[in-house]
């Protein structure tokens, strides 16, 4: 590793594992956002001013013209604690010579696992079950052997929207449950991923019509914001379960509420919402068939440590003028 001329300044808008950051602290002047809440927009801008490197994550930390102007032309590298890049103006960063890194691959397993955890928790009504135990309802309802009866994965049709790394990892896990079919849709056919697991490419509409479980694992772009709207929910089976681990913006939340309330679809499990955090007053939280987790897809100890390592690697590479380990784009 080459010598750095002076201690470069790094601002981390999110707190990071202490041990992982030590490597960075030895070579840089690191400021970490203090406090329990995410930084406000103003705090983020103030923190970024004069920095050589930034560590961000999707939430309030939008990287746009205002942020880049505020940071200053000395900014060399931004690394996001995510694989998603929808909060970053990539073209503008390219234009200004700011390297952008992210954390693909190291988070695939944890995220796919969370996707399946959410799917199964929704299918088996875990939220209602936990409540029934807590509230003393257990034992008082029998419902002809159907009390809290859920949906089986065996024999079902799985529809993956976006067979990328994460979508494929989810499909592989669900395949072991003896599902009847795995369908997928997206902008492109992915035979290298699909063929080994026998996944079948279909149109979005076909996927909606045929699937018992619809898993949203696509990256977000202008073409798929609000993809899951009233029309989409109408096409889905009345018993279908929607699982979203991509970005909240792919789902029209009002339309989802209506679809769940009216029985247009069966249930939904969401790890991502609009906004995040979801306000406690959100009507989605009043529905027994809507399960919301607080964007915890990457929350395993090994994954968080691996993400930290990768972020530090990328920051140091960017500061030293080397190509990033996991760049968001190539120059």
């Amino acid at each position, binding site marked *: 590793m080459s010598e750095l001329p002076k201690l470069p300044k790094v601002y981390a808008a999110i707190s990071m594992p202490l041990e992982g950051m030590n490597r960075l602290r030895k070579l840089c002047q690191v400021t970490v956002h203090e406090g329990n809440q995410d930084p406000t927009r103003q705090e983020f801008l103030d923190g970024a001013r004069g920095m050589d490197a930034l560590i961000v994550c999707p939430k309030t930390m939008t990287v746009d013209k205002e942020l880049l102007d505020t940071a200053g032309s000395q900014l060399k590298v931004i690394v996001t604690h995510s694989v998603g890049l929808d909060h970053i103006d990539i073209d503008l960063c390219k234009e200004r010579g700011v390297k952008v890194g992210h954390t693909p691959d190291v988070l695939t397993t944890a995220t796919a696992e969370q996707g399946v955890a959410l799917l199964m928790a929704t299918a088996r009504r875990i939220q209602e*079950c936990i409540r029934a135990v807590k509230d003393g309802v257990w*034992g008082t309802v029998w419902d002809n052997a159907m009390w809290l009866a859920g949906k089986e994965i065996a024999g079902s049709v799985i529809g993956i929207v976006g067979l990328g790394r994460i979508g494929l990892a989810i499909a592989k896990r669900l395949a072991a*449950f003896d599902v009847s079919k795995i369908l997928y849709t997206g902008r492109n056919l992915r035979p290298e991923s699909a063929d080994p697991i026998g996944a079948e490419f279909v149109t979005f509409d076909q996927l909606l019509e045929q699937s018992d479980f619809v898993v949203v694992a696509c990256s977000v772009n202008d073409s798929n914001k609000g993809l899951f709207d009233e029309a989409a929910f109408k096409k889905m089976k009345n018993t279908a379960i929607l699982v979203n681990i991509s970005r909240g913006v792919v789902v029209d939340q009002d339309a989802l509420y209506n679809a769940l309330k009216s029985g247009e679809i069966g249930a939904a499990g969401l790890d991502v919402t609009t906004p995040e*955090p979801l306000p406690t007053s959100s009507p989605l939280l009043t529905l027994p068939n809507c399960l919301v987790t607080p964007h915890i897809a990457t929350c395993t100890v090994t994954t968080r440590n691996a993400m930290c390592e990768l972020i530090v690697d990328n920051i140091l590479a960017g500061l030293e003028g080397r190509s990033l380990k996991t760049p968001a784009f190539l120059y």
Partner: protein
Amino acid sequence: MSSASAPKVFVSRRVPEKAKALITSQCNAILWEKDEPPPRDEYLKIISGIDGLFCLLTDKIDAELLDAAGPNLRVVSTMSVGYDHVDVKECAKRNIAVGYTPGILTKATAELTVALLLATTRRLKEGIRAVENGEWGTWKPMWLCGQGLDGATVGVVGLGRIGYTVAQCLNPFGVARFLYTGYRRPDAEEELKAEFADLDKLYSESDFVIACCALTPETAGMFNADAFKKMKKTAVFVNSSRGGVVNQDDLFVALESGEIGAAGLDVTIPEPLPTDSPLLGLNNCVVLPHIGSATHDTREAMAVLAAQNLIAGLKGDKMPSQIDD
């Protein structure tokens, strides 16, 4: 059908239509129509003189009950795979055939076991609660971080139908190694590279300990303070078999003190678990109300099979699924 020659049966809970229709077409059926289970004293009165009994795992089928039923009783059909609630020896003494429902609930129960494991290890209960009460919004790097299956050692205590299916489902999650105890399964060793181990080894090396064994005098209370001490401090314990295999007081202590990492239970003692049980106050304990087989398809299939067992037994035929003693 209610002719005098049709056998008299008691069906101790309401069951799906298909099963009910089967039973009533062949038997003179007394049907318990309430949602609450029949109180014991009423139960004992109702069954006097019956030929066959369609029961659930919440009904204790012991000598007292068999006495109350009287000498005509020749078939007991339980809508469950577990039969620890049935005194099979006592039934055998009295030439009472006992039917149960293995096989058809394997998938639903294995799926629930996996769902419970994931919900426990990925801290879904705490996550859901954080969303509801406004805790979401704080960022700590290890907030709600759980233990993943990737690279983990999974120990299955009792690799029967359900245990094996659980292991097969967990396999693509990146499990590094499966350990198991109970009876040898060469097929599992072949397919999953599962390693037969003694309990001590399983406890000390497993990141996930899954109880899939039947409740017998040998397994009763096996998961006790001793067992939890031998497990890793980060271990996730999952029980979808019977509450009786766990010493619940010891489990509470182990969870509270950090002797083990977390526990997911679909079965408890008693069932239902009282709302003031200390287990319900723990963040690292998930309790579900015994829903292992609770899917529409499976419950209907179980009811139909139990009805078929009942009818076959009453005719003196071999049941589709009969317990041999």
